């Protein structure tokens, strides 16, 4: 197992190895491709260009697909909340909505100072929906979502996946061909999760990579280094590129 940290190392790896199947990626890479305020934006797009030049498709699992669209949705709603706050009068009678939006704007500002891309949590999304629905009704909430993340965006989703070169692996318990050298099992994923103390979606990617024939994993998550240094068995010709 090699850890790659620069584009030069990636290019050299691609010259030495044929990636017939493509490469594996997690959502940190996909999210970094998407938002200019992510600290890994430029790197992720440079990597994507190298993969494009070398005709290497990108694979993730269906959990990664769900995570990716969820992150995009929450980020778009965050942007919408900041835009909405900018239009609000300090005299608004809807103090719950005003205070929530102000808090989101302030957190975004603080994250930008640290060069981090901020998006609201699932809990905050529910709070915002409840506050707006209580203040002005559910129709206005739906209009708001539609404006920033609605059909304009998600009707094009499959085209976006095609252009980004994304492909999704649907894994059946114990499946081997064509992507895996060993069966992928739920119990192995749970083992990785509990051994490494990482979230299930990350443990799934780690387990999937360890059992797969993929030679390259692209990620922005440094936890994978410890994961593969500690206990997961991989092949010598496999590598992880850290953005």
């Amino acid at each position, binding site marked *: 197992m090699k850890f790659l940290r620069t584009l030069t190392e990636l290019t050299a790896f691609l010259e030495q190895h044929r990636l017939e199947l*493509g490469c594996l990626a997690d959502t940190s890479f996909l999210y970094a*491709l*998407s*938002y*200019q305020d992510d600290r890994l*934006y430029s790197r*992720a*797009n440079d990597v*994507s*260009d190298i*993969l*494009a*030049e070398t*005709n*290497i*498709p*990108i694979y993730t699992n269906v959990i990664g697909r769900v995570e990716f669209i969820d992150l*995009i949705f929450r*980020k*778009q709603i965050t*942007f*919408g909340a900041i*835009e*909405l706050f900018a*239009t*609000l*009068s300090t*005299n*608004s*009678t*809807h103090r719950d*909505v*005003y205070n929530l939006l102000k808090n989101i704007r302030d957190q975004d500002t603080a994250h930008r100072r640290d060069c981090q891309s901020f998006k609201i949590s699932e809990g905050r999304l529910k709070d915002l929906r409840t506050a*707006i629905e209580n*203040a*002005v009704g559910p129709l*206005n909430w739906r*209009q*708001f979502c539609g*404006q*920033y*993340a609605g059909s*304009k*965006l998600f009707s094009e989703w499959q085209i*976006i*996946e*095609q*252009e*980004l*070169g*994304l*492909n999704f692996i649907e894994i059946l318990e114990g499946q081997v061909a064509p992507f895996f050298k060993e069966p992928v099992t739920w119990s192995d994923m749970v083992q990785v999760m509990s051994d490494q103390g990482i979230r299930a979606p990350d443990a799934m990617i780690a387990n999937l990579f360890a059992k797969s024939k993929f030679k390259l994993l692209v990620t922005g998550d440094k936890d994978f280094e410890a994961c593969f240094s500690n206990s997961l068995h991989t092949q010598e010709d496999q590598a992880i590129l850290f953005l």
Partner: protein
Amino acid sequence: MNKKVNIPQKDAGRKWAQRLKELSQQRPPQDLVDKLNQTEDKAKVAKPAAPQKALEV
């Protein structure tokens, strides 16, 4: 049946990011802005006037 494999296109990520940025810079729906900007005074004005007792028969 073999599914078609998607291959990344050059600059696809940057174009996608630009698209998301443009979408995020829109003004919120005006109806929502107007309703949220309603002040207490306006809310009172908007309420129907209470029936005057003097008119009662």
